[in-house]
């Protein structure tokens, strides 16, 4: 087998193993619940029988391994279980399937993340590359100082400053990003302007710094000096000598920051009351609606693992040592 294929398969296998363990951790969290949990969910008035029935429905009477496989089997078919909310001591069940709760919100979250990435990725790569090329110039130093400050600032601070400036003092954009399925695309873009801008500011700062570091690291290689001493011009050095070796570090930088975006989205969704998965998860945590929390956590973790996997695979397929084995 070609070594590249072998390496990719190995990396894919590792991804699957990681995902399995992560899902097992997320699943087993339910077994860590305190014993009187059923009572807490159903309320003090619930009878012993209802609580027992509830426990049985959760499967707490079955061995953990069996429950895990039932759960993960369900997940594979898109069934993430049933929400706790809507259950009442009366025994009347108005709860909804978790998948149904998550699906529309996942679309919204992906939309917000997508809009942000479309702006942030090219912008950050451009800033990082130019800062690296004009290292220690005034431009580089001011971009650096600005990004260092932004990185150290919490997302909600950035968000509220933007709301104060662009939402309240000069109301250009709406400070609440409430959208629903019927909102047309143009309107949607207008409403997510502030959350997307907040996320962009935070992500660009991180990504730009990492891009700059990666490029500077690359330009310090002896073969770049050799290229200079062979008379290559600056553009030739960048395009012909640096770029072919830059895919792996750049892919890593992008994946890392998109993964960071996944987390940043939680806080920003809450600030702007944007109906995404993040907000759903926070609400579920407050009400201790475990199945919803699990579903959201699984989606976030899977995205995170997948992004890192893609970056690694890009790194593998652009590595000349693996492309052209001895």
């Amino acid at each position, binding site marked *: 087998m070609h070594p590249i294929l072998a390496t990719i398969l190995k990396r894919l296998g590792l991804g699957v193993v*990681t995902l399995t363990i992560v899902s097992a951790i997320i699943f087993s969290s339910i077994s*860590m619940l305190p014993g009187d949990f059923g009572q807490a969910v159903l309320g003090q008035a619930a009878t012993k029988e209802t609580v027992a029935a509830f426990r049985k429905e959760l499967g707490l009477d079955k061995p953990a391994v069996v429950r895990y496989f039932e759960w993960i089997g369900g997940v594979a078919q898109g069934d993430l279980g049933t929400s706790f909310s809507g259950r009442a001591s009366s025994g009347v069940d108005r709860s909804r399937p978790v998948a149904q709760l998550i699906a529309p919100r996942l679309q919204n979250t992906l939309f917000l993340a997508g809009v942000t990435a479309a702006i942030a990725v090219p912008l950050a790569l451009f800033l990082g590359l130019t800062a690296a090329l004009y290292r220690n110039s005034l431009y580089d130093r001011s971009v650096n100082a600005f990004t260092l400050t932004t990185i150290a600032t*919490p997302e909600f*601070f950035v968000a509220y400053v933007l709301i104060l400036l662009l939402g309240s003092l000069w109301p250009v954009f709406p400070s609440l990003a409430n959208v629903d399925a019927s909102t047309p695309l143009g309107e949607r873009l207008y409403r997510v302007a502030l959350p997307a801008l907040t996320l962009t500011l935070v992500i660009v700062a991180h990504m730009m710094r990492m891009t700059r570091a990666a490029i500077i690291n690359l330009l310090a290689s002896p073969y770049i000096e050799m290229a200079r001493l062979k008379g290559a011009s600056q553009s030739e050095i960048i395009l012909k000598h640096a770029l072919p070796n830059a895919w792996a570090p750049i892919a890593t930088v992008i994946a890392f920051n998109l993964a960071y975006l996944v987390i940043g989205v939680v806080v920003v969704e809450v600030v702007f009351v944007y109906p995404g998965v993040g907000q759903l998860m926070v609400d579920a945590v407050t009400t201790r609606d475990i199945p919803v929390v699990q579903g959201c956590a699984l989606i976030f973790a899977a995205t995170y693992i997948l992004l890192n996997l893609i970056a690694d695979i890009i790194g593998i397929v652009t590595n000349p040592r693996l492309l052209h084995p001895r």
Partner: protein
Amino acid sequence: MTDTPETYSAAAEVSFVRKRRTRWERIWLALKKAPVSAWFGMVVVGIYVIVAVFAPLIAPYGEAEIFPVPNAPWGAEHVFGTDQIGRDVFSRLIYGARNTMGIALATTVLSFLIGGSLGLIAAINRGWLDQLISRGVDVLMAIPSLIFALMLLSIFGSSVPSLIMIIAVLDSTRVFRLTRAVAVNVAVMDYVEAARLRGEGLGWVMRREILPNIMPPMVAEFGLRFSFVFLTIAALSFLGVGIQPPTADWGSMVRENASLIQFAQYDLKAGLTPLLPAGAIALLTVAVNFIVDWFLHKTSGLRDEH
């Protein structure tokens, strides 16, 4: 041009000897040469620490003291007005310094105790134990930490001890990674091998040979981790699942006063109120980052860019 004397003497060989200085002289010298950004950072951190320690003496009112007028405007009686249920915002800001920083500090110390010692052990052992811990950490780090924290908080409930434990354990994975990485670099040095060949025990090797040589990056990492933990706790509190009322803390204060921002058009000061605690958080983390940046620049080129 210098010609070598005919008679060679080892003691006369050129070497660079530093002037003997006491520790305090050296620290003072370094401080004198520190850039403005580092000075700014140190002054800010100093003020925060003083405020946190002497909070009860500085604050005009109690932490949870409720006054009859909610959402009072800024004025002589209440410098930054009152919040939605009539507590003095200025006093809560001051107490918030104490609570938020104290909890973040405790968490960071705990995470360094866990991650640092495991990292050292893994770096020296390099066998199955290292493999086991490293793979475990890989898996834990495959889950975004904020998401993991949210999940664990939903199970264990939001109390200060569980908050500290959860964040410390999650954050210790990163401390472990760094400690292991820098300690491995030191552990392969010949002087560590020389100590092992001499027959020194694990304790000596860790304490006397490795630890002193990994201190600079570890100290810098402590600063970075502290600001990261601080931000995470603030974010969780802001989301309403961190530090719970009536304890004053900056994250929840942002959330509680957030709606005031809509009034900025009519009363700018009211609009600024939620930004005060948010700004307090930002200022501290920026200050810590400035100090760390300078410290790293001084000690080595080692700076992790995340």
